[in-house]
């Protein structure tokens, strides 16, 4: 039944049709025109009066029915391969989109994504500016680079809208997008690192603010003098919030003998005082100190003897002049 000889004009016609489809992927051409000669031969054997149509018209009909794009102007030189590749990619993209749209949720997601595309257009400009700042600049994203990013964003949006000749170089834009997505990862990585750095610094700041400091150095004792300039004993001090003012050594500022940093490098350890409530507190000034010594094994010996008050820096300070009467 299929033993037939194909007429030369049909061979020529099929060749011409394939030439019209030359911009498609070879596989697509084969799918579209596989068995074309046999079909045509059979078709025209049945009706000898039929005339072969123009190959271009026939090829266009094949394309339309197959849901393939119309023939684009032929690319030249180096650009022709990317254009073919792009067309094949576009075909795949269309098919994937169609199959996703069959599902209502999928269609919703696609619509959502397509409405946030402008965000990507702006984002990729910032990625590009960041890369430039890394390559050309000193790696700091200064206001200058922010300006570059804004100009880039304007260009990028125009490209996204298909302006500025974007339709002629879809392949280049695709490549650019892929590169931008890939670079986005290290960029986000860097941003997260910076965030982590700040996170780390938070406890550091808290630690360094432990105790009472003056100009960054630990205040280990406070000496109060009355209006006449005489030293005071047993003064309870509180801060503006009512928190007891307790000097503490800090590992960041001071050298200590123990891990909790309660004993200074010279073996001094503040002695707590007891209130009438029985509570032990550390905000009664001037503080007295125990003396602790380090044992051979590295442990601290128990305090020896009673806590001794330190020597005041001044025996007496100038008296305060009375406030003028109001």
């Amino acid at each position: 039944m299929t033993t037939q000889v194909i007429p030369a004009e049909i061979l020529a016609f099929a060749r011409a049709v394939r030439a019209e489809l030359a911009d498609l992927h070879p596989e697509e051409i084969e799918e579209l025109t596989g068995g074309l000669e046999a079909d045509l031969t059979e078709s025209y054997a049945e009706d000898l009066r039929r005339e072969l149509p123009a190959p271009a018209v026939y090829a266009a009909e094949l394309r339309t029915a197959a849901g393939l794009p119309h023939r684009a102007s032929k690319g030249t030189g180096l650009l022709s391969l990317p254009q073919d590749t792009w067309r094949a990619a576009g075909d795949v993209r269309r098919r994937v989109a169609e199959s996703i749209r069959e599902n209502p949720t999928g269609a919703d997601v696609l619509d959502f994504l397509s409405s946030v595309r402008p965000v990507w257009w702006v984002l990729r400009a910032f990625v590009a500016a960041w890369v430039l700042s890394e390559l050309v600049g000193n790696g700091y994203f200064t206001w200058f680079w922010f300006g570059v990013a804004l100009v880039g964003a304007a260009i990028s949006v125009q490209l996204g809208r298909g302006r500025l000749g974007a339709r002629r170089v879809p392949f280049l834009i695709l490549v650019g997008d892929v590169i931008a997505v890939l670079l986005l990862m290290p960029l986000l990585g860097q941003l997260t690192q910076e965030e982590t750095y700040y996170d780390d610094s938070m406890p550091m700041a808290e630690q360094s603010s432990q105790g009472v400091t003056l100009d960054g150095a630990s205040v280990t004792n406070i000496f109060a003098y009355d209006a006449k300039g005489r030293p005071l004993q047993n003064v309870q001090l509180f801060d503006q919030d009512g928190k007891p003012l307790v000097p503490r050594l800090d590992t960041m500022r001071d050298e200590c003998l123990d891990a909790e940093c309660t004993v200074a490098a010279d073996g001094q350890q503040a002695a707590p005082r007891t209130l009438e409530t029985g509570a032990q507190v550390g905000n009664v000034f001037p503080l007295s100190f125990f003396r602790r010594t380090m044992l051979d094994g590295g442990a601290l010996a128990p305090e020896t003897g009673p806590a001794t008050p330190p020597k005041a820096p001044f025996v007496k300070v100038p008296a305060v002049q009375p406030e003028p009467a109001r």
Partner: protein
Amino acid sequence: MDATQLLKGVLDVAVLAVVEQEDGYGYDVVRRLRSAGLDDVGDASVYGTLRRLYAAGALTSYVVPSEEGPHRKYYGITDQGRRMLRDQRKVWTDFATTMTQLLQEDAA
């Protein structure tokens, strides 16, 4: 109104229905569509549709060799194609019923 225009929208389901009856190669499908009454169906439209349905997974294809002359590429329907056909049958029936009622001349 031109039947050719109407056919464009329903060629998929027509081709699926024909292939469901029996596997066929390109021109065979064209001939069966024509003999069913779709005289104006174009060869290239049918071949293109076969290819698109194949790409969409609704059809499968296999080559039948011949001793003389070119090999034949046959198409058969897949499960997915059957589901598609069943869905489109329902759409068509609903649509055709609606249009028939709408266009009835003796409608009140």
